């Protein structure tokens, strides 16, 4: 029996073949000819694939292929304007005259343009529209410009390209996804991920530690990505769109001879260990010192701190091989594009000699795109994407079973061999050579294995019919089908060192998830010139999204023996099943009126209904209006200095719906040993409705010096009323889950700046530079009386809160008593007079003087830093008894952006450089908080080991101990009940994100190898990091890619909690076109 995805693929393939057979019968009519030519870069002569070449006002046109060649068939005899458009280049027109049955040639040399208002976009307007007509921001990422960049997935394509679009990785394991945020967070309780479409079909964009559904799409098959940044632009996408929209367009074929291309990538990756502090400790007795000297093969003295970088044993050099290829071509009425990619990535997690776990990602991706034009009026496009991805990895994140965590927990003085010591820090057999804590050794963690195996099909059929030149109907039917299976395995008897006590007889969990989303989109557009001055464009349409998610899984532990690895073989078993159905439907209408082709006013709206509110609910209406004025397009504008000028403004609403059944009071089931029972689940709220985001933006774009310098600026302002707040009602009322309530308000505003310039251009060299910056400020203005929300629930070390008056995810925690000189006048809270320190060892209620402390430290305290009298004194500034409510920072940067350059020299060489930065934000460094303070799984940074060794050394003087105690208060003490203290740190960074050097082989050399074009590239990713941050990596977040609506998924940002650092990657590739 075939798998459902295979069945679906088979059916669609059959349909495509039938369609192909139908259209292949079309022949060029008598009196029709063809227009052909080549599109190249005017500066370098490089062929430009993917340029749109068309005859304005007709359906005729196509794309240039990998050699820059294009072909327009079935053109009746006559005189035509042929137009070429390409992102980053100025539009070009040529007039050609075509004789009946003949062929005309029009070659184009495009010139780079720092600003291109004529670029055609699809997203946001419902139909294809030039950017200059839209009052809202639409960003376009052109994949063609990234063919040399060190990019292996969609997340990396988005990273650092556009101001206001941020990637938030949870860690650097291979395949670990990145959360995407556009202009921050529009919701306090619903997913803040943008919605994603592939060729017009809504797609599942979930993810976790092992695999990101966003990255399923073959990056080599992507033509471009359009990004709508907020409600003002995304109104027509209705409910769910207030976080923006990402629309991915896959490549399409171009008419002409069959052309195929191949690309081979070899990448090598490694974790940058420079920021990681080595594991440090000290021997407490001479016997310990002797044993440790023998174990580590070096002389270790009692109370003398020593360091061993234990994490090195879980690092290695990773390797990825990727091969991709494509075939494209076309004939009359038909063009096709087929591509495939095979990628095996063995990431930089090491320890493969210790345990069976690997960090790998295997991707098999295939894409088919078919464009048919059976008649002049009918166009049909269909695309299909099939993906099979297998991720494997260790336990990850803030887990006591992660190899990385355990290596960082390790205290070298605790190292012990249960077999022969080899003298190099290793044991001949069983042992705990790193000094891991009670949860297990590094070796044992390398037996816990997680996998995610996903098959996916995304396909669509899109038909367009041009009833009349001004009237067009389009319909799209698509499906996104995900079949995902996740497994976690702890083998029987994996505790080979005899340390771990957890699941030593094995455990296994399995989750199977099948998600199907059907997208239906029907729309009509009516374009007309109402008179000589006024044009009109009307779009009317409707959309429906039908999502069904079925998941089932189970857990089991305690197997009778090794070799059994099925849940049914376990003594204890648990199972679960869930069914979720969501229906969202909307109707939209938009009218755009143009005045003399330089002023465009757009108004429209969308009416939405969603199954979350039940069949009897009324819908929601989201309106929008925008204005675009291009004074430089007015007759008489002839400034060469300011060659292009546009002002734009937009106002629009969008929404976010609550979960499918959040409105209702529900009880769920509970298994007990007396039978099945019920327990409270959802408290219910009959008044629940979507939250509505209102956003306006104003922007200006200027092109200077014949558009060789482009500057853009956009100011935006967003307000979310009726924001859904997950309100915690008193748990003593029995319903302990939070209940959504429309009681919040959150605001945000920002400024986005962009610069693009052709800094230098000559025949042998051109230099383009670009820079962008985005400023953002967000504030939770109202929680409607609900208590503050906290990310990661009761887990005290994550300090991100949603609190009135602060940015979402703001960090709160403990502060030491500060000098009285810094206390505001009138304040009465505790402070330190000159000479006082934040301790009260004599318990007289007054902070100690140095003399007090020296007296106390005359001998080593028996409980080391766990002595309660060495708990530093905290301030309670507002006097409410809560010492953990001091604002300590926020995870969202004030400024973020990127800059870089593209340099072309000697025609064949290109260098691309991208830097990314974030400024004005903080990180909660949980990793080092443990490593500084916790005696069980930390206190093992060099500074902490020194401080404790000094404190406990009987030979230390009181003065030396005083220095250690000062360091304890001001640098090291952290964690409960001092959460936040010495933990929340500035995170500003500048990362050299990408660099690439590519070389186009001379044509004759490429030809000798049978290719028409061949490019060699060497590149690197995450090459260097400059940062204020003292922890492992300033880009880490608490969670991996997640798209749920939890506070944690939304706001546990800027949290470094044992995430694997973001790896460096070096690679080279060969790309050939045949």
């Amino acid at each position, binding site marked *: 029996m075939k798998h459902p995805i295979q069945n679906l693929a088979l059916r669609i393939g059959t349909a495509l073949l039938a369609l192909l057979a139908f259209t292949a019968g079309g022949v060029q009519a008598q009196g029709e000819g063809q227009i052909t030519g080549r599109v190249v870069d005017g500066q370098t002569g490089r062929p430009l694939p993917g340029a749109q070449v068309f005859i304005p006002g007709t359906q005729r046109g196509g794309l240039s292929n990998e050699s820059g060649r294009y072909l327009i068939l079935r053109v009746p005899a006559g005189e035509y304007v042929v137009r070429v458009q390409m992102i980053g280049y100025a539009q070009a027109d040529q007039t050609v005259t075509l004789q009946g049955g003949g062929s005309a040639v029009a070659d184009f040399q495009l010139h780079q343009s720092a600003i291109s208002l004529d670029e055609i976009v699809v997203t946001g307007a419902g139909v294809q529209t030039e950017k200059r007509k839209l009052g809202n921001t639409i960003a376009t990422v052109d994949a063609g410009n990234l063919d040399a960049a060190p990019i292996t997935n969609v997340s990396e394509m988005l990273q650092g390209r556009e101001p206001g679009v941020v990637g938030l990785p949870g860690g650097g394991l291979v395949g670990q996804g990145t959360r995407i945020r556009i202009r921050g967070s529009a919701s306090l309780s619903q997913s803040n991920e943008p919605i994603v479409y592939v060729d017009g079909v809504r797609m599942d964009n979930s993810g976790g530690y092992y695999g990101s559904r966003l990255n399923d799409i073959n990056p080599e098959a992507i033509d471009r990505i359009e990004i709508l940044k907020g409600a003002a632009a995304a109104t027509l996408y209705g409910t769910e769109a207030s976080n923006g929209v990402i629309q991915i367009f896959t490549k399409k074929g171009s008419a002409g001879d069959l052309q195929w291309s191949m690309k081979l990538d070899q990448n090598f990756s490694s974790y940058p260990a420079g920021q990681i502090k080595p594991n440090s400790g000290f021997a407490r007795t001479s016997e310990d010192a002797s044993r440790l000297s023998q174990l580590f093969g070096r002389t270790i003295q009692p109370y003398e701190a020593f360091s061993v970088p234990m994490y090195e044993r879980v690092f290695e050099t990773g390797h990825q091989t990727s091969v991709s290829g494509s075939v494209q071509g076309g004939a009359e009425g038909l063009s096709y594009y087929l591509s495939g990619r095979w990628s095996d990535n063995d990431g930089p997690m090491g320890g493969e000699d210790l345990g069976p776990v690997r960090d790998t990602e295997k991707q098999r991706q295939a894409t088919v795109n078919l464009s048919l034009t059976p008649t002049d009026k009918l166009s049909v496009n269909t695309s299909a994407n099939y993906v099979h991805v297998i991720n494997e990895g260790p336990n990850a994140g803030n887990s006591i079973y992660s190899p990385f965590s355990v290596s960082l927990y390790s205290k070298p003085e605790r190292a012990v061999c249960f077999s022969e010591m080899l003298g190099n820090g290793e044991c001949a057999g069983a042992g705990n050579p790193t000094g891991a804590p009670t949860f297990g050794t590094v070796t044992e963690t390398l037996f816990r294995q997680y996998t995610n195996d996903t098959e996916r099909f995304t396909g669509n059929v899109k038909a367009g019919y041009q009833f009349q030149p*001004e009237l067009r109907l389009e319909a799209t039917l698509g499906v996104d089908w995900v079949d995902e299976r996740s497994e976690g395995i702890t083998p029987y008897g994996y505790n080979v060192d005899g340390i771990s006590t957890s699941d030593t007889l094995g455990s296994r969990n399995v989750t199977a998830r099948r998600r199907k989303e059907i997208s239906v989109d029907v729309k009509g557009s009516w374009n007309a010139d109402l008179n000589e001055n006024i044009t009109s464009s009307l779009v009317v349409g409707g959309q429906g999204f039908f999502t069904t998610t079925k998941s089932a899984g189970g857990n089991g532990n305690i197997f009778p023996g090794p070799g059994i690895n099925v849940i049914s073989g376990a003594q204890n078993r648990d199972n679960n099943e869930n069914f979720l159905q969501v229906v969202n*439907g909307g109707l939209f209408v938009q009218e755009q009126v143009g005045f003399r082709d330089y002023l465009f006013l757009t108004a429209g709206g969308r009416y939405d209904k969603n199954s979350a509110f039940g*069949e009897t609910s009324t819908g929601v209406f989201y309106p929008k209006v925008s204005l675009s004025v291009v004074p430089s397009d007015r007759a008489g504008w002839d400034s060469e200095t300011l060659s292009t000028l546009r002002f734009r403004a937009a106002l629009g609403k969008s929404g976010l719906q609550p979960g499918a*059944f959040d409105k209702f009071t529900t009880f769920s089931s509970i298994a007990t040993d007396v039978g099945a*029972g*019920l327990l409270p689940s959802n408290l219910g709220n009959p008044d629940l409705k979507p939250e509505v985001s209102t956003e306006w933006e104003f922007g200006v774009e200027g092109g200077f010096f014949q558009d060789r310098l482009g500057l853009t600026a956009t100011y935006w302002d967003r307000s979310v009323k009726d924001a859904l707040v997950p309100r915690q009602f*008193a748990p*003593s009322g029995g319903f302990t889950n939070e209940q959504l309530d429309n009681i919040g308000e959150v605001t945000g505003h920002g400024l986005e700046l962009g610069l693009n310039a052709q800094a230098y251009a000559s025949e042998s060299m051109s230099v383009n530079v670009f820079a962008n910056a985005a400023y953002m400020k967000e504030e939770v203005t109202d929680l409607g009386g609900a208590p503050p929300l906290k990310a990661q629930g009761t887990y005290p070390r994550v300090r991100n809160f949603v609190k009135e008056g602060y940015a979402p995810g703001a960090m709160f925690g403990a502060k030491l008593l500060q000098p009285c000189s810094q206390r505001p006048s009138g304040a009465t809270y505790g402070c330190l007079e000159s000479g006082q320190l934040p301790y009260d060892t004599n318990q007289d209620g007054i902070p100690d003087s140095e003399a007090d402390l020296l007296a106390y430290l005359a001998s080593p305290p028996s409980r080391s830093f766990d002595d309660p009298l060495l708990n530093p004194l905290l301030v309670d500034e507002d006097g409410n008894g809560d010492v953990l409510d001091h604002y300590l920072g926020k995870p969202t940067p004030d400024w973020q952006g990127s800059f870089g350059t593209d340099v072309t020299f000697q025609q064949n060489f290109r260098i691309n450089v991208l830097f990314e930065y974030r400024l004005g934000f903080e990180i909660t460094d949980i990793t080092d908080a443990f490593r500084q303070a916790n005696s069980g799984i930390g206190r093992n940074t060099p500074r902490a080991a020194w401080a404790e060794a000094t404190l406990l050394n009987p030979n230390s003087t009181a003065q030396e101990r005083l220095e250690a105690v000062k360091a304890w208060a001001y640098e090291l003490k952290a964690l409960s009940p001092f959460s936040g203290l010495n933990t929340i740190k500035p995170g500003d960074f500048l990362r050299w994100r990408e660099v690439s050097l590519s070389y186009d082989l001379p044509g004759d050399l490429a030809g000798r190898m049978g290719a028409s074009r061949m490019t060699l590239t060497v590149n690197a990713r995450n090459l260097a990091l400059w940062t204020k941050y003292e922890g492992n990596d300033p880009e880490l977040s608490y969670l991996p890619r997640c798209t749920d609506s939890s506070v944690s998924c939304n706001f546990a940002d800027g949290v470094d909690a044992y995430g694997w650092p973001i790896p460096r990657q070096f690679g080279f590739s060969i790309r050939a076109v045949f």
Partner: protein
Amino acid sequence: MLDRAKTGRVARSSGRRLGSWAAMLLLAGLLTGCDSLFDVENPNNIKGEDTALPEAANSVVNGAYGTVAKGLAASLGVYSPITDEITYIGSRDAWGDLNTGIVSNPQNEFLNVAFPYIAQGRWMADEAIKLMEQHQADGELRDPILLARAYLYGALAYINIADTWDDFALSDRSEAAVPVGEESMGGLYDQAIEYLNQAMSVAQAQGRDDMVLTMTALRARTHHARAMWDMLNPPGTTPSNPLVSSTSAVQDARAFLAMNGSDEQWRYTITLANNDMVPGGEITLGHNMNDRAELQFGADLVDTDPDDVASITGIALMDPVDGIPDPVVTAKIAEFQDAFLYTVITIVSAREMHLIVAEGELASGNTAEAVAQMNVVRGLDGLSDYDPATSGLTPMEMLVHERRVNLLLENRRLADMYRFGIDSRYWTSTSDAMTTPGSFLTIPQVELLSNCHILGSC
């Protein structure tokens, strides 16, 4: 300025535009008319109102049992680490705070996890009682024992709350309630006794002697706990006479022993279902001691491997009479470890009844009877009789020992430590347990910030 091709033509008829609008309206009508499209299935839950159906009675009472069981497991998870029964060896320092005797920090993460579990159990039990009483009044209660069971689970919840927390609120759904108040928490025992009386009445009427036996033992244990609570409140001092003298407790205990006959190993327990892989959340002792290794039995009870403190190498606590590793502790730890995640929680036992009688007799001066009762218990494990004259231990010291070992991990030890003036080796000098004996767990942040009566925002 760029030259732009003009391709459209002036609209010749406004009718087409009107047609487009008409089409839009038609589509809108279809969307609003197709309401059934938006009626989706939810097989994951049942609607709240359906719990009131007589057909749901059994599931509601089972739910009360299940939530109370999780609540008891959760309470035990945060109570035991305060005592010398448990020590902290792991990574999550909020366990360490409890272990050092800090019980008044409302931000302690584990209090914030445990409180909702027992709160939900309490509410669900009261809801079950309300619904069963309603069904009975309507003549629709098919099995009257369901009502008795609901009362029983209600009693278990109230007893546990009074044993464990310094204060509590008895809210209902979204309606927050004024906290009971520290000075009134003893009243929860009275409520439990009332529930037990009601349950006993139903059980007797239905001829369920087994349930009557259980209720009797529970009532004895509740009277004893109530007397202990009176002794320890208001907190801050160690009572000069720590012995409980409760006639009601002794009467019920004796009544139980008379009914129970020779089944001296009798105990009423609950077991967390083994089809729930994380029973009672992440804070159960089974998870944190047998699996995750955050907690370990205290050093007074066990010896551990210095290279691997999660590994027990022997029993440290000796029987004071025979000088051997205490067999009760040995057996209880073995049972606890064997159960892995699904530990058995003993609610009350025949052993405890003997000890309640022993304590009552000791308080009233009948040392011989007290010793006899304790020796019955000792005999169950083959231990020699205790003789005050030869052992070097006072009867009260012996009672303290017997309660320590026989009620191990049964949510009793902290009250005993307070009343008998026993300090844990893990308590720090500035901790609540040391400075204010009699302190139990405070209402945590999760309730403090969501209960408008506490916030003063109602």
